């Protein structure tokens, strides 16, 4: 079995120690960091995303796999930086003002990182100003907002409105998601995309960034 396949398999079962050790071994063996990332860590998270989507695995399995992925990334990140390999993009992520439900947002964060994106996670109860200010500071391509409560969804509109006011609409793209959030709602508030689940959110972020 190739070492990359071993990384994938251990990532899927959530063995962070093995993924860390195997990533180090791959680096020492001279496998290119970009290849370890794409064919090891990202490939493993792709499988996890697919199985989760099919309800073959559940949140605990995803959390364990994510931990294994992070363990591998810790080994890989310094090398990726040194070689100047750019991430596919930066995403500022958070649950909107008034909303403390973060399971969905955390899943999206995990899947985005698993797809190689840099994620700046602002946590829960994030104000519109904070979303925009952080995206500016980090030169992020995308703002991702999540809401579980129908009553907090309207805070999303404040972000799209302010981006427009500040002439940033289109330069900083907005994706929204969460149980009560529909594609129609996304259009209505002027968001650029709607992710209906974590895997779909990653697909949509990819296409938003490739539009830029």
């Amino acid at each position, binding site marked *: 079995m190739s070492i990359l396949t071993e990384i994938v398999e251990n990532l899927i079962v959530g063995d962070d120690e093995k993924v860390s050790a195997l990533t180090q071994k791959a680096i020492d063996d001279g496998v290119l960091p970009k290849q370890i990332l794409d064919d090891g860590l990202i490939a493993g998270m792709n499988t996890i995303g697919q199985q989760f989507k099919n309800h073959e695995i*559940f*949140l*605990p399995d995803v959390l364990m796999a994510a931990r294994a992925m992070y363990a591998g990334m810790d080994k890989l990140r310094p090398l990726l930086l040194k070689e100047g390999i750019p991430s596919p993009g930066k995403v500022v992520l958070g649950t909107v*003002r008034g909303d403390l439900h973060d*399971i969905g947002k955390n899943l999206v964060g995990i899947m985005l990182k698993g797809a190689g994106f840099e994620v700046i996670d602002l946590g829960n109860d994030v104000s519109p100003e904070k979303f925009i200010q952080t995206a500016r500071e980090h030169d992020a391509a995308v703002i991702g907002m999540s809401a579980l*409560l*129908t*009553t*907090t969804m*309207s805070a999303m509109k404040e972000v799209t409105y302010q981006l427009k006011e500040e002439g940033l609409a289109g330069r900083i793209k907005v994706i929204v998601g969460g149980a009560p959030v529909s594609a129609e709602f996304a259009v209505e508030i002027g968001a650029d995309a709607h992710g209906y689940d974590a895997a779909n959110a990653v697909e949509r972020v990819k296409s938003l960034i490739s539009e830029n």
Partner: protein
Amino acid sequence: MKPLLERIRMGETLVADGAMGTMLFAKGVESGQCPELVNLNSPQLLEEIAGLYFDAGADILETNTFGASPLKLAQYGLEDKMAEMNRAAVRAARNVVGERAYVAACCGPSGRILKPYGDCDPEEVYDGFVKQMICLIEAGADCICVETMIDLAEEVLAVKAARSVSPTIPVTATMTFDATPRGFFTVMGVTIERAAAGLREAGADVIGSNCGNGIEDMIEIARQFRRCGDMPLIIQSNAGLPELKDGHPVYGETPEFMAEKAHELLDIGVSIIGGCCGTTPEHTRAIRQMVDSSIYE
């Protein structure tokens, strides 16, 4: 009042009330703030809501203490208000119903994910639940209602916390399931079979499901619970799944629809039938009528 569990053992079907959050929002409580703040700031609102559900025929009234565990309150920086919030909610319900209905003290998830999947020590969650249970039981709750859980391990801790404070207080324990093409699972992947076995083992008296589904899926969930054994069951259905209309959530299932369907829960032998998100005193009234009229069938 006859003890709750005795009535269940005699084969009676009890009616529990409907949604609390839906009613609070309808009465102007703002979403985003801690929903239990109302217990301190305007307990008369809780009395008003309890009164509506009692008048609609509920045998069991839930307290507004779903998020009043120390860990959950800590997310709002309100953990120092824990004791008073729990006591005030039990008091408000009791003021209204006296000994004419049961006050069910509600306890929801801590909002944290337990190790090894998350960062929270099980002991910390258990200690928090014990503190909440002490307040609820000392304030005179007739039963404890642990609900909307997705992690079986956490719910077991809550049930055991209640048991540690009172070995005899009736405890109902429900989980929230999602309907998937592969069957019903909680977000954490718990099946109905595992829930039934685990909750019984933990010492719950009545088990079942609340939230997450409309009445039709809830009937199927009840059937599957029934196949797992002869434990008394509780089902608290949403009034369907919310759809957004003009920026507001609308729950589609009417009181009549829900009550008519809920008749099947009687056939399955469900002991407690109540409502969750989107249900109102009108739903409770319709379920009450359905249960009462079935006695004469």
